[in-house]
């Protein structure tokens, strides 16, 4: 038992460290790509290629004045960012980063844990993170914040439905909610039997769009639409509390990339993972990187939705498509059996 506890603790420490680094550098990556897309250089002064920029920004933000507006609900105002950050970090304990590798003569599975309701756990954390945003908007006692918080929560719950229904097709393929089992079910065809090729292109499309909306990314970034709401629900936040929102959002972005990879793009599966297990980690990282890049690319390519369009798209297009996907997958499965 102590052995197991030690293993979990080490894995969690490693994941937290890797995740915080990844978050810092995806912010930098986003700013650099934004620069290139807009024909300018982006941050390139601090360190080679601007690689030390995240550290400089972090240091600056720690020393910024921490403001609690006089009319805010103090307690809620302080805990709201933690309610967004904590669930977004907790998702990562069930994501399988690779198959089993041997380290120091010991077999180590490359995920912290896996259990029967793995995917439901991810969806549950996604649904709980609504509170952080809704309460931040309310606690700030600012009109822009409240409007941003309300918009964000209504948007997140609307697209959560499509998100939850789009994974049902994957479940019909794998017969399990355990993410490790879901990856293993995509192991055929020399590691290329990925759900997105086999039967779930429509499911993936719905999941991808819904995940963009869940993470409040463009074209669904109405909660922080700068031109109308200043900065949405975090208008009143400064210093490290602002950083926590930023971290939570980028964690959700990376989590969305990781879960899309796991469910639809074979997770760590790929040619040659049977013989070289370490390859699995490389495959997973590469796929997640591609997803993060696509998320950033979309941000600087597409304009923002209008709110009525957003609602209509979620409920009238995405939701019926998700249901259609379930019916098609189940029917094909029944006929093939």
């Amino acid at each position, binding site marked *: *038992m102590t052995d197991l506890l030690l293993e979990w603790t080490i894995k969690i420490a490693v994941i937290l460290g890797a995740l915080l680094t990844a978050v810092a550098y995806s912010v930098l990556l986003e700013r650099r790509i934004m620069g290139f897309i807009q024909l300018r250089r982006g941050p390139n002064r601090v360190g080679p290629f601007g690689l030390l920029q995240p550290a400089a920004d972090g240091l600056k933000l720690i020393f910024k004045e921490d403001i609690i507006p006089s009319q805010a*609900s103090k307690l*809620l105002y302080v805990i709201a960012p933690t309610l967004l950050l904590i669930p977004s970090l907790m998702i990562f304990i069930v994501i399988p980063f690779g198959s089993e590798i041997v380290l120091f003569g010991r077999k180590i599975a490359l995920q912290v844990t896996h*259990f*029967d*309701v793995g995917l*439901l*756990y991810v*969806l*549950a954390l*996604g*649904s*709980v993170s*609504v*509170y952080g945003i*809704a*309460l931040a908007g*309310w606690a700030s006692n600012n009109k822009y914040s*409240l409007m941003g*918080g*309300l918009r964000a*929560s209504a948007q997140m*719950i609307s697209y*959560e439905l499509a998100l939850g229904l789009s994974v049902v097709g994957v479940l019909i393929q794998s*017969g*399990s*909610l355990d993410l490790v089992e879901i990856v293993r079910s995509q192991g055929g065809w020399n590691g290329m039997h990925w759900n997105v090729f086999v039967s779930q292109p429509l499911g993936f499309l719905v999941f991808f769009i819904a995940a963009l909306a869940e993470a409040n990314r463009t074209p669904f970034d109405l909660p922080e639409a700068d031109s109308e709401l200043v900065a949405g629900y975090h208008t009143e936040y400064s210093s490290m509390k602002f950083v926590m929102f930023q971290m939570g959002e980028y964690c959700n972005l990376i989590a969305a990339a990781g879960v899309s990879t796991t469910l639809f793009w074979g997770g760590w599966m790929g040619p040659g993972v049977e013989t070289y297990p370490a390859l699995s980690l490389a495959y997973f990282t590469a796929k997640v990187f591609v997803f993060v890049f696509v998320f950033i690319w979309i941000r600087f390519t597409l304009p923002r939705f209008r709110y009525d369009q957003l609602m209509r798209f979620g409920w009238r297009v995405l939701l019926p498509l998700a249901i259609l996907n379930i019916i098609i997958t189940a029917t094909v499965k029944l006929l093939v059996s």
Partner: protein
Amino acid sequence: MEKALFIIFAVVSVAAALNILLQRNPLYSALSLVGTLIALSALYVMLRAQFIAAIQIVVYAGAIMVLFVFVIMLLNAPKEAPYIEKHKALRFLAIPFAGLLIAEAFYVIRLVKPIQMPASDDSAQAVGTTLSVGTKLFTDYLLPFEVTSVLILMAIVGAMVLARRGED
């Protein structure tokens, strides 16, 4: 280990439940209820009811309580005026009712027989998994399940009728 965890989660759930009653601000009460629900779902996991535990978070903490928080935020319900002050007589009714409730709780606790928990890696622990719940629900309990769909439909119509009353 298991006993220590049980005590922690039990204390958290009871404390959060008490906080629901003691808070004057309805938003804090709602959040305490979310805390209670999460602690209870940890207890469900310890009872091997894994699927129910996950559903508890998804549906209760993630949907029903979001609705509650929405209503509180949208209505901007003022801080609760002490109800007792307006109806002094109720205070004297509270004591016998509380006594009755405690007696009833004790009676139920005495009635329940302790069950043998399956050992940690027993096949019997598969009772609470998604697969076993799914198979049972859609074979043995088919009719209640189909009736549920009609119930949800009725709830949709009911919600619309109540929310849109007096608008047309």
